[in-house]
């Protein structure tokens, strides 16, 4: 049975190999390989505003 240290070493190696693969793919991309189509069109919904009604409070 693998001990805990061995398991962690293996995981780190897997993540690091994965990162390397992703980094290589990203490096080989051209600037137009990422194109934005729709931006964030919403402002952050704020509890300051939500459910506020007249004079700053909820009417029920």
């Amino acid at each position: 049975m693998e001990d805990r240290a061995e398991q962690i070493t293996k995981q780190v190696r897997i993540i690091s190999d994965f990162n390397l693969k992703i980094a290589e793919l990203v490096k080989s991309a051209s600037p137009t390989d990422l194109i934005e189509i729709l931006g964030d069109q919403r402002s952050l919904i704020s509890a300051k505003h939500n459910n506020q009604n007249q004079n700053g409070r909820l009417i029920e």
Partner: protein
Amino acid sequence: MSGRRTPDVTLVFPPQWSPFQPALALPSLRAWLERAGHSVRVIDANIAFYEWLLSDDCVARLRGALDAASASTRDAYETFLGAAAAFRETILRVRRWQALKTLRTERLETYVAETYMSSRALDTYLHYVSHIAGGFKLSPYNFSIPGNSLRVADIESFLAHPPPLLMAFVALEVDRILEDRPRFVGLSCIGQEQLLFTLLFAKRLRERTSAPIIVGGTIFSRIFERGRLPAQWFRYVDVFVRNEGELPLEGILGLDPLDLGAGIARVPGVIYLKDGVPTSTAPAAPLKPDAIPVPDFDELPLESYLVGEITLPILASRGCYWGKCEFCHHGMVYGEKYSASSLDGIVAALDELEAKYGITSFAFNDEAVPPKVFRGLSSLLAQNRPRHFDFTGLLKFENYFQSEDFRNAREAGFRSLYIGLESASERVLDLMQKRSTSAVMVRNLADATAADIWTHCFVFFGFPGETEADAEETVSFLMSNSGIIGSFGAGTFSLEHNAPIMRRLAEFGVSVREAHADSIDVYYDYDVDRGIGPKRAIRWMEQLNEQSDGIPSYRAINWIPREHLLGLLSAGTVADLKRISIGCVDEGDAPLAMPLSTFTIDRKSAGHGRIVMNMLNGRTFALKGPLDVAFASVREAEAHLGDIEGAWPDLLTALRSGSGERASHQEDTRPI
């Protein structure tokens, strides 16, 4: 509803209202009428509306609305529509916490993160539904149409040509309402956002049934009081009920539905058409809270509300014990009368609701919980059943409260309090007749905070007579007291018809602008001859909101809808919630610790490679060539953004809200 008998009345709660909590109005009315021997069916058409918007049926209808869009826009929206099931999963995942009370504390970080993701994904989803369907804007907090929804001409135009998507829902829902052929149908309109849907439902019902259509709630009462209730709306509605609905509706149900005219003039608290003119009968007598039965939530789909913990609304009193504030017209709902429930009555109601529904979270939605009730209930529950219930409630600052009251309140289960601070200037508070003092405000807030109770303060700018120095005092107070104020909501003064200040306009230097002839607005446009006017008040509100974003503890909770707060606080401490929440906010909709699959959707597109959408903010981008391959690998490996942020920083930038660099091809960024 096969097998049930024909209801005397089916009561309907139309959109738009919060999808996070049931409203109290109809359960309260149902309990009253059932006790009087009537059979009552209740339908929350509001939560049904939100659920339907998330359905495949709705998505299919939206697809048909995209024909005229450009190919790239269709591609982008197809990403959204094609992944509606993924949106549904992220939005509805929060509901699984309803059955996991203990785990909510053990896995607090995940509970908060999933609540955050659900709330943000719902915003995005509704944004795109509104955008694609056209003709309305919908969020969990609001519903509006282009033009002025408070002008009769615009409302009639909406009713004549409603957006097809909304009409499809109303038609389905009206079929459900009429399936067991109720003798009467009641619609409850307690918020201005419900007005359009109320009339749309009434119009459709009128086409489909001969059952009388009754509309209750305060909105139409206020329009009537203002003298602006259009006679033409009696084409859709037989009777409007004024204010408290119990006695008037009981009276109406005693009439012959085929011949209302014979007896309607004898029913108190109603508005009917007499010789072509909207006419009111005498008000119904105000009800004592202890005479009102415990609200009956039996027919509401409690598990459907979009929260991790259901909170039920409850009242400890009717009317306002203070009842003096110049800006507030709330008392009219209760005939300017106030009366509180007995402590025994409140505890019995809590016990009954817990026994029936297994729910232990309650929101006291009183205008302000009476001080003696707050002290008495807190003390009673702290002694007898510690840490059993969770409460939130509205309170007024009072010298009467001592630190022990807040310690008892916390022990009894109060986790948050909503307080009308209004202004930090004692001069303005005196003008308002609010009469709070700075010393008491600070003491109450500090005592609540020391007891680990969240405090949310309401403030507004522009009360007539307020000066620049007064407004500055309010801003300084909020900025310098963030240690004892959990959060605040800022607004501007609204001049409401029949508010006490209307009797002293000259004294306050207020002149009312004439409203358009067909306006039904119960709030007046106005000018002031001194101090802060309406435009300047908006600027002060904006300035406060901008400044307060610099304070992490305020920024941390901006996203939390009010109905979620009690549930979140019931699982941890105030400090826990602030710490976790600021993490969610500052990661800018790109959570590093969650798998990409939980907040992004993607699809292959012939023209664009792979299109990716962040469900939390709607940011959508195309990935080609090696980036397409890289994204597929990340998704497949169920990697977290935090695992690969070093290897692919641009992905983080593309997913995040407010990221500075935007790619050059912004093909469609139309704001709605």
